[in-house]
Structure formats: structure tokens, C-alpha cells
């Protein structure tokens, strides 16, 4: 199975930064996701959200990248928000205890309403 490259596009709302993650999240996606996160922080948003609405596959290395990102954010006093995941990956995120370091939302509306 060929992995689709990870893409991370940053967009901003009034007080939040949203990183739309598409493709497959693997170790190759680390630079794209972490790069977008650093870029997101430059605008000093109240919160950064990762949107997985267009993500089809996340392997263990991709999970490791996400855990590393949310843990680093946590150390800096920030709590990242996650939404758009399929039910499968919502369960996987719960198994690896991602909710300890990041909040999970059902939709973008719910995520933005949390601000």
C-alpha cells in the first residue's frame, strides 16, 4: 500500500489557527505538521486546532508525531484541539491517551465554540 503524502495547510479564524491535515499521517509528515504548528503559533492564536477531516490513514509513527506535538504544546502551556477524525482514529487516539494532552471535538463548529 502506497502512502499518500501528508499535507498540512494552515488557515486562521479571528482567534484560532486551524491546520487542515490531509493525506496519510506517517513519519514523513512530521515536518509538514510540526512546521504548520510553528507557523500557526506565530499569529499568537488563542488555540491551535488540527483538522483530520481529510485524513484517511494514520500509522503508529504518525500517532507518535501527534503525541510528540501535543506533549510539546502541553509543556509550553498550550492545549491543542483535534477534530474531524473518523470513529476508528477517535478510538485509537483514546487508546493512546491523546485526550490527556489534547481536547477532541466532534466538528469544527464545536471546536471553535470552545474558545
Amino acid at each position: 500500500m502506497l502512502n499518500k503524502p501528508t499535507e498540512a495547510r494552515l488557515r486562521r479564524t479571528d482567534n484560532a489557527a486551524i491546520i487542515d491535515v490531509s493525506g496519510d499521517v506517517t513519519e514523513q509528515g512530521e515536518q509538514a505538521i510540526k512546521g504548520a504548528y510553528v507557523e500557526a503559533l506565530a499569529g499568537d492564536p488563542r488555540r491551535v486546532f488540527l483538522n483530520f477531516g481529510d485524513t484517511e490513514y494514520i500509522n503508529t509513527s504518525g500517532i507518535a508525531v501527534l503525541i510528540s506535538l501535543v506533549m510539546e504544546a502541553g509543556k509550553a502551556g498550550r492545549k491543542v484541539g483535534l477534530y474531524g477524525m473518523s470513529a476508528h482514529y477517535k478510538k485509537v487516539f483514546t487508546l493512546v491517551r491523546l485526550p490527556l494532552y489534547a481536547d477532541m471535538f466532534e466538528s469544527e463548529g464545536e471546536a471553535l465554540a470552545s474558545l
Partner: protein
Amino acid sequence: MDRLWQFLDFRVQRAADWWRLPLIGLVVSAPISLTTSLFLASYGAQGPYGGFWRLLVAGILASVPVFVLSGGLFVPIELWIQRRRRRLHQLQAAVVRSGVLALNGVLGAFVAYAIVVAALLAPPPSTLLAVFLITYPLDIALVGLIYTLYEEYVFQLQVSTQLTQEMRVASGIQRGLFPRDIPRVSGFDLAARCEPARETGGDFFDFVDLGDGRLGMVIADVSGKGMPAALLMADARSTWRAEARLDRGPGETLRRANTSLCRDTDSNSFVTFLYAVLDPAARQICFASAGHPLPLVYNDSEIKEVEVYGLPLGLAQDATYEEVSLALAPGDTVLLYTDGIIEVMNASRELFGFEGLMSVLQLEGDQGASSLLERTWSATRAFGSDDDQADDMTVMVLKALR
């Protein structure tokens, strides 16, 4: 593959290999020599210097010794390059080789011209010398370039063969880390299987005898694949074995293993672990999980997930791990697995998923442990899009006999 690269390895790396270079010069230059001679013969045949065939033979006889000689003179330069292999870039080596050979080609042009002068009845025009001076140095410089490309090819082939061999050895060593036999437990049927996606993998399962008939069982998944995952797998397995033998219970065992692994892993690596201690006499099983997919328990067409959670090992030093105990009734089947099973993808990029695995368990849960394991495997294979396994896959089945 070994024999192939040994056959192809005609490089001059030691003084004793000197005889190879004239041969390489001749082989590489033979087509060039023939082309040049044909050109000269066609050119000369229109003039007063003899017929086509006579000039062709004269051209070949004149050029071949030049190439052989060039190769021979090239030996000291080649040995000098080889001694500086670590410091000399391939491009620099190509420039040195081609430059030296081009200078030699100039000498060869004069020698060839002198031979033609001596061999032909009528004196050749000075343009023939110009032709020799252009073609010979360029032709022979090409030998240097081709030799560099050839050398790089053989070198890469050698490296790749060595890597393949090392991977094969590593794979054998890793296979040796898996239990040779599945333990027999009174009143229970046990089966387990692991297939890495590459030569080596990050999934593993293992058992440890805890005394009094109790059995420690682990299934784990290291993030990533291939050699880095295999190294972390070996580390995680030995750490777990050392801690498990102290018999402090699954939760405490994982806590201590985590503290140790946190020192060995970087921020982008972790290990999911499911450690279960089976007490066959009490017909009880106690689980602790470090980010691993939940155990499934089947009995009489009912499936339930054992809700046991914990942070994967290697992420946070202060992580603690809860324990969940379960009484096993006759006929209960416990299925443990890694994410490679539920993340098998079909051609439409749909995942086999938790639902797919539960469907297999629903249909085949009454089978014996080995049979259920095989049917789970077959179902994932049938679902998957091709033979290219994307992730390591491991399944362990424990069945309480009636």
C-alpha cells in the same frame, strides 16, 4: 547476488589487481577504437592511402595498443585514488582519471599517427593528425568517466548486498527473540502469531513463567517499522522480561518498564504494550495496558472490550498503569492484537477496522485458539488490497476450555 557482484567487481583496489586496468581499457575502448578506425578508413579510402580494409586494420592495430597502454599507465593513478577513497569525491576521481587519460590520449595520437605514416605508402595529410588529436584524447577520457560510473555502480551493489545480508541476519536474530513454543496451560488453549511487514519488525509477543502455574503474556507494538523498530522492540522485550520476572503485577511491571524505556526512546518513539497475567487455577486474568488496542472477550456470540487504558511506554516517566481483572468462564475467548490487524486497507482505502475484527470473532469465536487465529489471518488477507503488508501484524488468542 554475492556471486553477481563478485563477478562484476573488476575494480582495481590493490596493486595486485594491476592487470585488470589494461583489460578494462581495452574492453571499454574497443567500440570506440572500432568506430574511430571505421571513420579513418572511410576518410582515407577516398584519398591515395590504400583501400578501406587496409586502413581499417591499420586503424585498429594503431589504436588498440594505445588503449591497453593507457590502461596500464593508469594503474598508479588508480591506486592513488583508491588510497584516498574516503577523501576523494566521485566527481573528483572522474576528473583525475579522465584528465590523466586525456593527456595519455595526446601521446597516443602522435604514436598512432607515426604508425600510420610508417604503414602507408603515401604520406598522410596533416589533417589526419588533427583527427587523431581530437578523437583519441576524448575517447580515452571517456574511459575514465565510464570506469568511474562502473566503479560507483559496483560499490553501490556491494553496499546493497551487504545491507541485505545484514537485514537477513537481523531478521534471524529477531525471530530467535520470539518464543519457540507456545506454552501449554492447563484448562486453556493458547495460540499466537506475528508477521513483520519487512525483514524485521516492531511487533512482538512473549510469555514468562511466573510460577504456581501462572503465565505472563505480552503483546506489543513499537512505533515505526523495520530496523529502528526492531532495535526498540529488542530493548522493550528485555526490559519487560526483567521486570515481569519480579512478579509485581501487570500495572507495576509496566510502570517500571516505562521508566526504563523513557530513557531509551526519543520523543517520536513509543511502545504500546498489553501485559496480562493468567492464573489458570483461579481462572482469572489481570490486564494492564500501555496504549494498546483493547482486549476482546467472546462468549456465546457476545463480544465485550476490556476497558483498560494507559499511556504508551516511553512517553512520560511518571505514567502509571491501572489493572483490570476478569474471571474467565468456560468458553471465554480472549483475543489480543496489534493495530496492523485492524488497519489492513483494501483497494478503496477502507480499513478492516475494529468492526472487521469483531465480525470475525462473532463468526469464528467458537473455534479453537489456533483455528480462530488462522481465520482472523485469512480474513485480513482476503480484505487487504494486495500482498504488500503495510504494518506488522500480531494476534494472540486465549481460550478457556469448557
